[in-house]
């Protein structure tokens, strides 16, 4: 009951936030020097002002800014993201084409980072103060301090170029004609390096957090209660400490899942992954206004969705929320 009303409330707020983001981005992007017509003309290798004027008229860029804003806002309100000047197709279709790749990448790196992070965090916490704890913590710290794109480059260099184990870029083997399982296997191979490099940084974050949280929770009174009941160490860790220790990790994960999209820009660039992060970067260079705005809206929406999901997970894990207030 209250969960549904809360989610409804969140969605209303989210819609307002999204609209505000659309407007802010509209102004931001229009503040950038140059416009899509100039870029298209520029790439044509030759153009006269007439040609550029034609393009502007075609894109509606000859209208005053407030008219453009208004028509954009109207579009957004009717869930229409407009037309990509550059790619010559509706932004909605464009994003729909690219989004699955990004979702696959971000979700798998999210799963990798969260599961490995928690596993290593638990392991390190269980061995706190021992050598293996130091090793794990140090490795996590190294991942945390490594620039993402650099790690990606080094990974390609080692695993793809030197060892030849995994493909170094792309989403799948082009024109392979694979289908079904074979295709999934093919995509999986392509996915490993980008998902790992994107995931490692966050894995380090989750690991540190899980470890700290585990140690903090293990100091709590109810853990002593559990020991006084005669429960064994592993059972206490699993049933009592871990569940409580996961709460802050879940919160952080929810916040960061959305931000994975941002990190995906770098990963997608290095690994030629056909996702929306790269689409955004390319559209930005091309001043493809509608596409950038569309990608921004979609990724902001994903952040919101992740936040709401986190809330739901949190409510499931922690009975106190939702019952309170």
């Amino acid at each position: 009951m209250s969960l549904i009303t809360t989610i409804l409330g969140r969605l209303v707020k989210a819609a307002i936030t999204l609209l505000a983001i659309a407007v802010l981005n509209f102004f931001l992007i229009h503040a950038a020097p140059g416009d899509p017509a100039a870029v298209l003309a520029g790439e044509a290798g030759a153009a006269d002002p007439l040609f550029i004027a034609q393009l502007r008229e075609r894109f509606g860029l000859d209208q005053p800014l407030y008219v453009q804003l208004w028509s954009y806002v109207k579009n957004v309100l009717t869930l229409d993201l407009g037309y990509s000047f550059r790619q010559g197709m509706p932004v909605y279709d464009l994003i729909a084409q690219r989004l699955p790749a990004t979702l696959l990448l971000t979700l798998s790196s999210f799963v990798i980072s969260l599961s490995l992070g928690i596993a290593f965090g638990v392991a390190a916490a269980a061995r706190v103060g021992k050598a293996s704890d130091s090793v794990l913590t140090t490795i996590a710290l190294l991942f945390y301090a490594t620039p993402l794109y650099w790690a990606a480059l080094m990974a390609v260099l080692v695993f793809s170029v030197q060892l030849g184990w995994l493909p170094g870029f792309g989403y799948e083997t082009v024109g392979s004609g694979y289908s079904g399982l074979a295709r999934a296997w093919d995509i999986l191979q392509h996915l490993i390096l980008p998902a790992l490099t994107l995931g490692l940084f966050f894995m380090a974050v989750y690991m540190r957090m899980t470890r700290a949280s585990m140690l903090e929770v293990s100091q709590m009174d109810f853990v002593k209660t559990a020991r006084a009941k005669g429960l064994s160490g592993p059972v206490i860790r699993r049933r009592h400490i871990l569940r409580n220790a996961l709460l802050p990790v879940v919160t952080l994960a929810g916040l960061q899942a959305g931000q994975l999209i941002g990190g995906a820009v770098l990963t997608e660039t290095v690994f030629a992954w056909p996702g929306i992060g790269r689409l955004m970067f390319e559209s930005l260079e091309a001043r493809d206004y509608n596409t950038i705005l569309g990608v921004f809206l979609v990724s902001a929406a994903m952040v919101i969705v992740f936040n709401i999901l986190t809330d739901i997970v949190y409510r499931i894990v922690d009975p106190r929320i939702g019952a309170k207030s």
Partner: protein
Amino acid sequence: MTDAILSIDSLTIDLPIGADRPHAVEDVSFDLNKGEILCVVGESGSGKSMTANALMGLLPDGVTVGKGRAMFDGKDVLTLPEAQKQAMRGARIGMIFQEPMTALNPLMRIGDQIAEVFAAHNLLSGSERRARALALVKEVGLPDPEKIIRAYPFQLSGGQRQRAMIAMALALEPEILIADEPTTALDVTTQAQILRLILALREKHGMAVMFITHDFGVVAEIADRVIVMRYGQIVEAGIAKQVLESPQHEYTRALLDAIPTGTVPELAPITTAPALEIRHLNKIYRTGGSPFRAAREVRAVNDVSLTIAKGEVVGLVGESGSGKSTLGRAVVRLVTPDSGQVLVGGVDMAALDENELRKQRHRVQMVFQDPYASLNPRHRILRTLSDGPMAKGVSKQQAHKRALDLLEIVGLGADAATRFPHEFSGGQRQRIGIARALAMDPELIIADEAVSALDVSIQAQVLELLADLRRQMGLSILFITHDLRVAAQVCDRIAVMQYGRLVEVGPVRDVFHAPKQAYTRELLAAVPGAGWAMEKEDATA
């Protein structure tokens, strides 16, 4: 001693290097007999909890058993391998803790937490465990057992949680129950119920109870035998009655003397001029108001009227949630009341706007409960004491001089001025808190549970100081406390609060000896060791 079930022999517990002393417990020996309740009494740091934890094998990291034995069922529990300790915990020795709020896993249903005890020892099947959990919940007197076992800890009150804890500890009918200050965090009435429950269960199951407490009232209530500990050593041991009546060791005597006895002081001469007049004060808390949900209302202060004369000390007593703190905070305007008046020296504190209020603040000052949270850790004492007066317009020189004087008055000495709060003990900090309140030259002081967080002996010293100051300065005080004996010791009149209302107001003697309201009688009866205290009073009278 054939009936000794647990026999501790020269137990020494080592603290990690760098701690303030080498041993938490030093050379402690005692027996716990079958079916008896042994109270281990001591102030904080006396090593009483460490002893219990050592027996359970639950010592914190870095703290280790140095030497000694604890023989239970023919084996030394201190040197058992971890697996055997684990098998023993919960099954043969049960334990309950002080904080029922934090001692239960917040994410697990009560029933599951009880059933887990059986699982831990590989006993019974799933459905049997559930049935046993239900029976246990019934046995410890929790209402609506079916609902309780499906409830989460946050849905229970403090007393209910402590009952759930006890249910867990009793699940496997252990021979020994170790109770580490199990009632300290509870209200008097709840405390009384829990104590009765423990007595009843001992009666029924015949287990031995090692009961750790700092409260001689509790000792008087339930103990068969007593051990008094100080700085990790046993200073006195004996039959409860003997120790209470004729303590041998001076520390025990000091502790007993420090207990507020319920001795009613003489009435101070009361002037007619009121220091504080509260008229029809109301405060309602609303929570959870949102477009999708209706707000919930709690009437924290419900049409309260109270007058405190100049030079009078009025005690405001009640259980947690009775609204006594809200009332106190409304008087100093840390809480803005919804309606009613708070007249201090003719000024209605409740009606002032923010600017005016700032100018009139000095009229009422407060002494807070937590000596650790009430001083800004980053300010030197001098600044803490002089910032207020200077904001009032007192010159820096004068404010500093007054601060030094006050430090002398509260017994700390002027050299305390240049130090930081963390260099002081809890009792000293409370003295600084009092000095800070006095620095503003208030017409009224609110003391909100000002001695509740202190050890008995320290408590006595602070109460002494308050009494002195009162005599010297003719202070008017609203003394908020949950401890009726403390109230009886320092107050002229007592106001009893329940559910936001004042149920009874009157001179201490009347309230204590001839309470008019049933609730007041209930409160008085619940005070642990009440009968013993009265006896004592009669004896001295």
